[in-house]
């Protein structure tokens, strides 16, 4: 695998679902990439298609009813074109997944140890004792007290936080190179959340993994993300380095997202309006109906191309495009600790909303 090539490269990923009332496109031509040792965060409200995107990478989504197009190059191989049997070799062994709700994530009828060693033994020819030893020390590593005796306990005998630790152990038992974490801490209370995040961070270095982290909580993003990809209604609005985006968010949606955070000087208000209907998404920019700077151009044609507005930072917004006036949108001064109070730039230029 050439060094310069990213660990995971997703191009034009599209996932559609055929339901009773027409086809629904949850992910509509999304690209992103993850390098080894890097943590990429996909951010967006729930229903923005971020979970579907991650689950389409290794085709965990059931097809039918789902259809997945585009290319997902992992270590140079396009996973989507692989036959199921080969893809199965990669799941759990090369690419691991942890999910949001640890309570339901484990089968109540089997011991925790059995479920962890299962992940290992279906891929590698490892004897039971070896597998047990590896699992126990991993459980220990993820912070489960007296792991060797807890190995034979059942899921209902663990707390939420412990269960998530077990899930992490289960994911890492196969020494994966890429870890996809789909809102792993959302269901946990805040104190446990912090521990889990720090654990993930340490493990990332120890296992030299790439981490694709999905969350809607910008607090979490700030803490662990290297790069972030902002998704809305199935499309990428903005991507870039975490610090750049937090300092000077380009896309109005990102700006509003950041405003929701009190510690970033936002007023804590929510974003007016609701998500568009995925069955027939609006023309032009997906955020146009809820965007205060929306203009006629925003509501026609396709989602605007992503334009590099700063080194490593791209935004998909008409105003930055050719003939657009970025000053309308681009507002300086919004950054950590700076409380200019004013919400946005000179509001008199763009019509508030039509």
């Amino acid at each position, binding site marked *: 695998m050439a060094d310069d090539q990213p660990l995971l490269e997703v191009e034009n990923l599209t996932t559609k679902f055929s339901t009773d009332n027409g086809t629904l496109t949850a992910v509509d031509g999304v690209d992103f990439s993850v390098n080894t040792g890097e943590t990429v965060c996909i951010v967006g409200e729930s229903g923005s298609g971020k979970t579907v995107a991650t689950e389409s990478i290794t085709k965990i989504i059931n097809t039918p009813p789902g259809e997945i197009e585009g290319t997902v190059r992992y270590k140079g191989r396009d996973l989507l074109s692989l036959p199921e049997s080969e893809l199965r070799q990669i799941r*759990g062994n090369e690419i691991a997944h942890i999910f949001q709700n640890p309570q339901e994530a484990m089968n*109540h*009828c089997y011991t925790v140890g059995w479920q962890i060693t*299962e992940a290992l033994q279906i891929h590698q020819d490892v004897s039971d004792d070896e597998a047990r030893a590896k699992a126990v020390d991993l459980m220990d590593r993820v912070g489960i007290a007296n792991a060797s005796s807890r190995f034979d306990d059942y899921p209902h005998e663990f707390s939420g936080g412990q269960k998530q630790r077990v899930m992490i152990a289960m994911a890492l038992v196969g020494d994966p190179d890429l870890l996809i974490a789909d809102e792993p801490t959302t269901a946990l209370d805040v104190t446990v959340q912090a521990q889990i995040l720090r654990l993930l961070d340490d493990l990332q270095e120890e296992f030299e993994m790439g981490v694709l982290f999905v969350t809607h909580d910008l607090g979490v993003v700030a803490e662990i993300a290297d790069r972030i990809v902002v998704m809305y209604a199935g499309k990428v609005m903005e991507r870039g380095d975490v610090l750049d985006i937090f300092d000077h968010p380009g896309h109005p949606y990102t700006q509003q997202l950041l405003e929701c955070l009190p510690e970033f000087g936002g007023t804590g208000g929510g974003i007016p309006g609701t998500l568009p209907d995925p069955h027939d998404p609006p023309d032009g920019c997906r955020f146009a109906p809820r965007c205060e700077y929306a203009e006629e151009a925003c509501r026609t044609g396709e989602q605007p191309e992503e334009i590099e507005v700063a080194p490593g930072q791209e935004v998909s917004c008409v105003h930055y495009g050719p003939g657009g006036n970025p000053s309308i949108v681009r507002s300086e001064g919004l950054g950590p600790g700076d409380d200019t109070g004013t919400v946005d730039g000179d509001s008199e230029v763009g019509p508030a909303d039509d």
Partner: protein
Amino acid sequence: MGFGRYVTARVLWAAVVSLIIVTVTFLLLSAAPNPAVQRAATQAALQGGDPAEAAERARELRGLNQPLYVRYFDFIRNVYTLEWGWSVSRSQPVMEAVTQALYYTAQYSIPWTILTVILGPLVGVYSAANMYSWKDHAATGFAFFGYAIPNFFFGIILLLIFGVWLEWIPITYKTGVPVFSVQNAIQLAIPVFVLVTGSIGAVMRVSRNESAEFQNADFMKTAKAKGVSPLRAYAYHVMRPTLVPLSTTLVGQLLALFLGASLLVEVVFSIPGLGRLTYEALLAQDTNLVLGTTLFFTFVAVIGNLIEDLVFTVLDPRISYDDR
């Protein structure tokens, strides 16, 4: 309260239940006129003796004139020491009659139970796996067909077609045939088929509904993410949780079917099994044999329920023993 204590509690309870049922049977039968006494009376009358006195002697001979509770106690003593007395209508000890009949019943009920316990859940999970597809409708259709068609009706038709017309299977059941021979398999093929179609329906339906829920459970997504193959996912991750609710209904279903269905299949295919033994014992009003067979079925039912409880707790670790 710990597995050990729980098991003993259930076993004790099983013994109490069997005692109650046995007592009810005893009372029912002792209320019925005893044919042997009547026969003795007519016998004596025909020989010019005094019928009343002969009836009294016969009753004495059989110990029927002692007070009820004395008869009841030595009846219970006999029951639990397995001396079930002599069967008049079969001229052999009741115990021997029951074991001999059991030998034939076992030959078809063991394969029947195994097939039902294996095929039932498999077909159920399979049809849940491709819910609402034509495969699902076919499987449910088959299950309902088997469940709905009266087994004796189905039996006589199959016997006519395969026995009389095609002559593939013997019409009368040959007892002399060695148990594990092909000939025995042939002659038991149709009875077992009739019984399995009858019992598989209920099991299949329960397993289909139960496994449908587990199919979309989160741990299935985890399993897929771990790279577990669909086959293994179903075999382990869906099957075992499905067996939990299934086990409660499974044993109950099989027991209910065991006496009824087996009796009719034995009558239709002239298999000298336990069902027919009970039926003929009742027709001949052979008190000892009726009690013997009732005891047997009671023990089977009671042990069945016991197994059901134990299996239930073993299969589903979430159930702790205190709140059972």
